[in-house]
């Protein structure tokens, strides 16, 4: 709780990027775009890096 503010900001950014990537992964599946979906899913898993 006492970490500096910029650390909180970095985690917030990480969280938002994960949400964005997850939405694109799920929606790309719904769009029947398998390659795009797999790239987004892999990115999501790699970020989930989240140190």
């Amino acid at each position, binding site marked *: 709780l006492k970490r500096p503010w910029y650390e909180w900001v970095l985690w917030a950014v990480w969280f938002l990027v994960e949400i964005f990537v997850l939405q694109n992964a799920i929606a*790309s599946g719904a769009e029947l775009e398998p390659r*795009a979906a797999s790239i987004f899913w892999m990115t999501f898993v790699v970020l989930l890096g989240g140190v």
Partner: protein
Amino acid sequence: MNDTGKAKRALSRREFFKMAGIGTGAAVAASSLQPAKVANAAAAPYTDPAGRPARPWWVKTVDQPTTEIDWAKMKRYSERYIEEEGSGTVRGDGFAGYLGAEEAERLIKQGNDKMKQRLVDNVDGYTLKDHAMSAGQSATSVARSFLGPQKAKTPEERGVPKWSGTPAEGARILRTALRHMGASTIGFVELDENTRKLIYSIDPDGKILEFTDEPIASETETHRYIPNSCKYVIVYTVQMSEEAMKRSPTMTASQTTTGAYSRGAQIAAGTQEFLRTLGYQGLSEASTNALGIAPAFGVLAGLGEMSRLNRMITPEFGPMVRVFKMLTDLPVEPDKPINAGIMDFCRSCKKCAEACPSGALSFESEPYWETKGGWNNAGHKAWFEDATKCRTYWVSEAGTNCGICFGVCPFSKKDKAWIHEWVKAGTSAAPFLASFFRSMDDAFGYGVQKSGEDWWNLDQPEYGVDSMSVVKG
């Protein structure tokens, strides 16, 4: 848990506000990720007096279209081949006109033979059920006519005065009516001495289109007379299925084009009767692609921008639309063109030109004034295409209409994933990113041809299109 522990875990006021601030910031940022995608599932009142839909911030209204026009050089175009001049459309007689009768006959026979063989061989996208789908789509059409069915009772016959309202109200009720009949986006253009040049000189059936001071439109064996009072152009789009078009060039893909034309004809007849009931005239296309230059009117009505395809691309559906137009004397508020960065994107993309098997599309970075042949209409700067190459491929190879360029276009997306809106916004705001976005489009596997057989296993929405996408602005 002792007192010391409790004391240590109690948040100070500063820490509490820090957490609350970050939480609020995250929530705001998350909601702003997709400002244009908050689905308006329940019908909401128009926010614009003329019923214009709210569009994303990156679709900017402009005074002049992104296509440069030299009205002094432009002439009314003939949508029928004129042998003496070697000009006019490549459709119909134009194919033989430009290539020679013998060559045209040979190519047509070649295409027919290939189609027969594909059907016999049960080739993907050309099977009997694909042919059946195309035939079914054709059958859903209604008869097109310049003057309309003229079966509805006029206000006079109903014993009431004709409808009257402001031009904005006229535009609004037409938008509501056409949307309910199946149109996706609707815009309006007011004819003046320049924009009149976008009305054909000759219709596909050879009839001459002539403006007249007579108040009522009429038609003879040789002419269609347009009253000068019918100076308002209703321009509307009908969506095609992006998923079907990804099967180009097959019957599976071409049926969505056929279906959109059929729905366009239904909407035209419906709108003509709607206008007649209000006490006004609706002068429509007497046949497919008649009356005037659809993409040009679409651009002036703010429905999209011209592109490397030399067709209109819309911000909402990319090129996945058919464009229709109709003249009326009901005063409506005209729309302005838009700049959504589409033309800029086309400068560096070239994906359609690379994919075109006939080499009909231009690889030039900048659009140009010089036409490629009599089938093009001079007077505007465009990526003019070689329509004879395109048509030859349709007739002799594909055996049906093609659509590969539509299917591979980076603007052809279903728009479910947030990334598409971000890319379109990025393209509009920062055109220098276009090459990067084009590369990413390839890397992510967009625009690849799909299997016709797989299409039959998809659980799709009505008409294979997302009818909600225009009310998400």
